[in-house]
């Protein structure tokens, strides 16, 4: 259980400005962050570099860079979730060298489906990113495999979740500025 900290006198309610914004769900904002804080430790990924023979810190970095370049219509939240999904999966299963990109791209496919609201992304866009080295069927099989390794639970509090709140608390900056901070 999370200890309840009483609001102090000089407490500035950073969510007060969003009271009239229905989408910001201010009524539940405290519940939501308490929940995220609770599951943060449960879902934290261990350092898996020594168990993943074909992976190094450097390689992980270039894989992430490659993914950012590969998909320009990338929402921030999707990017952070993609990295989390990939890390959680690779911490539990070893992948061959030629599979690593496929893992990354399928993580991106799943994260886009979870975050982006309007329409599901098309599987062919992702097969294309892989330069057709893997077939559509490979992507679909990998998708189910990754989802089952994650036990179909994607409510991982990514750094993005906390970052937006911290930035909001640091200074009442505009949403556009938040976007800029998160990218660079």
């Amino acid at each position, binding site marked *: 259980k999370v200890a309840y900290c009483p609001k102090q006198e000089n407490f500035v309610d950073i969510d007060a400005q969003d009271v009239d914004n229905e989408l910001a769900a201010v009524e539940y904002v405290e519940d939501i962050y308490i*929940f995220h804080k609770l599951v943060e430790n449960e879902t934290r990924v261990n350092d898996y570099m020594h168990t993943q023979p074909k992976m190094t810190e450097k390689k992980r970095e270039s894989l992430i860079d490659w993914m950012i370049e590969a998909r320009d219509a990338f929402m921030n939240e999707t990017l952070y979730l993609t990295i989390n999904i990939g890390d959680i999966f690779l911490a539990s299963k070893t992948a061959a060298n030629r599979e690593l990109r496929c893992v990354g791209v399928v993580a991106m496919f799943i994260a886009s*489906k979870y975050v982006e609201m309007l329409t599901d992304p*098309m599987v062919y866009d992702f097969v294309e990113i892989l330069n057709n080295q893997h077939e559509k*069927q490979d992507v679909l099989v990998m998708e189910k495999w990754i*989802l089952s390794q994650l036990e179909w639970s*994607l*409510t991982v509090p990514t750094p993005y979740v906390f970052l937006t709140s911290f930035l909001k608390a640091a200074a009442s900056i505009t949403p556009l500025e938040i976007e800029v901070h998160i990218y660079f």
Partner: protein
Amino acid sequence: MEKYKLIAKIKKGVFQGLCLLSSQTVTLKQLGFPDNEGVPGSLIKEITLLQAMRHANIIRLIDVVNHQEQSSIVLVYESMETNLTSFIRIYPKVMKIPRTIKELLRQILLAASYYHSFNIVHGGIKPANTFIDPATNTLKITDFVWPRTLFNSNTEDPNEELGFCYKAPEILVEHKQFSTAIDVWSVGCIFAEMVTQKPLFSATSEFHQLAKIFSIMGTPSEETWPGFSRIYRYLHIYNHCKPKDLRKLVTGLEPAGIDLLHKLLYMDPKGRITARQALEHVYFQN
């Protein structure tokens, strides 16, 4: 799937099984989806939510397993045998005790207010989806309406009880913007049924359901439901009915219970009590 052994088929796509690791009985539900784009995003979101929900009055999703078919998965739920329909049939005397009714209603409302705090509409609360453990009188709700509406739209079992008896008027007129209030209506219907041991609005078909509701709760007017004639163009074909006295229809219920029932079955969803408010009602005070 090797973790589970199938024991019996309950209905199409639904099986009773045994977990070989914990020797716990479970309910397995197979869920298919179109294969071309992989797992639908809506399904990923829903299952993630179901995994996050933990409540004593909600049947827990234990596991999700991949089926050997690429476009199919299996949801594994904890298993309970007695639903409210059979509970009323087997233990009519227990159901006559006002305290039993109060305790069961409180548990349904707790489950509903938990769903609603996630902004989830259950959409199909009915006695067949409401399970009771006769040993402890613990009640648990199961079965969202979504798996059926989204993916297996034609698996409605003809022998299953008629779900439309518990549908709120705003869904029956296909008012698109329905909210968590539709669940509160269903809870109201179940409340009345626990007291009288028969459905309150028992029409012969979904088509007649609205007329049945109007005949008991009164045909909506501009005063009782502002804007209803705009939402529902066919209102004029219904006879004008005055509301009936619920005390005479739901006999044996204490006055505070009748008052709560009125608030749960308030026709205009905007004026209907919420599950959380209902739990604060005087009916539960003593």
